[in-house]
């Protein structure tokens, strides 16, 4: 008798998701009508957060190691190159590469000193790292303190991103749209890399660490080394997001508010909303929370409130608590379960 063996998943299937995403973003400005510069702004920000959350999902969702401090590495990605430019007059691209490599080295040092910690201890240690870096950039003189850094050069992509508009095959594409495309091209690249990692033998080892660290070790997996590797990888993604924020999105004005304590919480919430277990969940989590943030600000300003950050903290806090109580596996998996339950009940 011939036994049948399972086939591995065909490789092209991995790329369907990223393709759809790329097409959706590409189509967005063609579908949107009226003055949508505000939506472009939001779309760019969504992309930046999705990159961070994608890395954080590899770390938290797949490897089971918590980090409450990734806003710190996001900040490093923005501030290291900004400081290299403003204080040391480095050229832009050298500064950007320096920023990403610098973040990699710093996260390697931090990761290898804290990743032996488990659970709550790791959570606290990473939170401390996030707070220290966040406070650092908002207090140090070299980072411009609370005033931030101004007049930073922008990534131009050989002049492509600085023109008011570009014509491709007779279609006019405005600067805002090009910036959106550029950011989301990076997002797609990061996601392609992440899904490839998850499918690879290394990705399986990450899930093994999440499943049972002792068992993973007993199978020859160097769990500590691997945890450090994903940690560094996730920090590099955060740094890339930081670069995009400072040198594409923020239009040359880098303020420390973006990297405060609340950002750490928000990033973790994006992961939790996405269900911690899938890259596509993290994309959804990133987009949902960024949009929610804007909606709260809009409603707030319509109601005449000057500062909505307090009420936003409250709403996010209550949301996080509710999700963790009602559906610890995350909001999206929870909703999925709930809808199947409702369908089941209806059909009875």
């Amino acid at each position, binding site marked *: 008798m011939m*036994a049948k*063996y*399972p*086939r*591995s998943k065909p*490789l092209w299937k*991995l790329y369907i998701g990223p393709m759809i995403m790329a097409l959706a973003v590409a189509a967005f400005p063609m579908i949107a009508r009226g003055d949508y510069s505000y939506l472009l702004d939001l779309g760019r920000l969504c992309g930046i957060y999705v990159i961070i959350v994608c890395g954080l999902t590899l770390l938290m969702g797949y490897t089971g190691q918590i980090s409450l401090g990734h806003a710190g590495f996001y900040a490093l990605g923005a501030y290291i190159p900004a400081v290299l430019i403003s204080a040391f007059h480095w050229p832009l691209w050298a500064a950007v590469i320096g920023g990403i490599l610098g973040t990699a080295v710093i996260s390697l040092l931090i990761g290898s000193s804290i990743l032996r910690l488990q659970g709550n201890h790791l959570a606290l240690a990473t939170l401390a790292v996030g707070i220290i870096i966040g406070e650092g950039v908002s207090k140090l003189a070299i980072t411009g303190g609370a005033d931030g850094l101004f007049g930073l050069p922008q990534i131009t992509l050989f002049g492509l991103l600085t023109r008011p508009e570009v014509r491709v095959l007779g279609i006019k594409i405005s600067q805002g749209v090009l910036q959106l495309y550029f950011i989301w091209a990076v997002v797609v690249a990061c996601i392609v*890399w992440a899904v*490839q*990692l998850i*499918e*690879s*033998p*290394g*990705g*399986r*080892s990450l*899930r*093994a660490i*999440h*499943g*049972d660290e*002792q*068992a*993973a*070790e*007993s*199978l*020859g*997996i*160097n*769990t500590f080394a*691997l945890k450090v*590797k994903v940690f560094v990888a996730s920090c590099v993604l955060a740094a890339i997001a930081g670069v995009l924020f400072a040198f594409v999105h923020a239009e040359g004005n880098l303020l420390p508010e973006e990297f405060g304590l609340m950002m750490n919480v928000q990033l973790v919430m994006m992961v939790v909303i996405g269900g911690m277990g899938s890259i596509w969940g993290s994309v959804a989590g990133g987009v949902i929370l960024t949009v929610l943030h804007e909606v709260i600000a809009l409603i707030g300003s319509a109601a005449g409130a000057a500062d909505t950050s307090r009420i936003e903290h409250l709403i996010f806090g209550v949301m996080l608590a509710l999700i963790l109580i009602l559906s610890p596996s995350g909001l999206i998996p929870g909703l999925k379960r709930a809808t199947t339950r409702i369908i089941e009940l209806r059909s009875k």
Partner: protein
Amino acid sequence: MLEVKNLTKSFGGLRAVDDVSFTIDEGSLTAIIGPNGAGKTTLFNLIAGALPPTGGSVKFMGKILPPSPHKAAKRGIARTFQNVKLFHEMTLLENVMCAWNSGPFLLDSILPKRYRETERLRMKHACYLLEDMGLGADRDTRAGDLPFGKQRLAEIARAMALKPSVLLLDEPAAGLNRTEGASLAKIIRHIVSSGVTVLLVEHDMQLVMNLAERVIVLESGALIADGPPSVVSRDPRVIQAYLGVA
């Protein structure tokens, strides 16, 4: 091939393993028995590098084993756990494939074509290993959804995927029913006949007396008897140790 010398492990004031020495020959099957809390699991943890010894050493093929489980595993020491540790969220097939994790992490994630062919062969090999344990039909089942007996066997299949020279089995028969126990005995014999050196911690005396060529008895961390089953089972100290706790 495995040389345990004056091995000692203390937890605070408690000597869980107390000055234990023995040598294991290649291809042999040795049982390690002893009442609850005698230090059997601790001894396994020391051999597998999961715990650093307080004193003494474990030599494997003439070299001291580093106190690191993944290094011990790479050197050819595989183990199962008393309280089965499968990756519950993965299928059995994936569980077994977790034993094959070498490869450059970053490069593999960038160029997925690199590992496709090896992964295909690995998948096939994993299927064979599961079939050997009679788990062929369950290969796509989530490990956490399987009954306990099958989980135990799957854990052995996963350990065998390391192609170990030494296999440490910590109470593999605990929680198995009679038929599963019988097939376990067959599986262990098969593993030994394939050249793997097996150390077996087990409370099921019938299984031990049936299978083992040699029995080592621990009591309160100390080695109190070492010899063929027929001799050890008549040793007055062994009888005393077991009656003492009964």
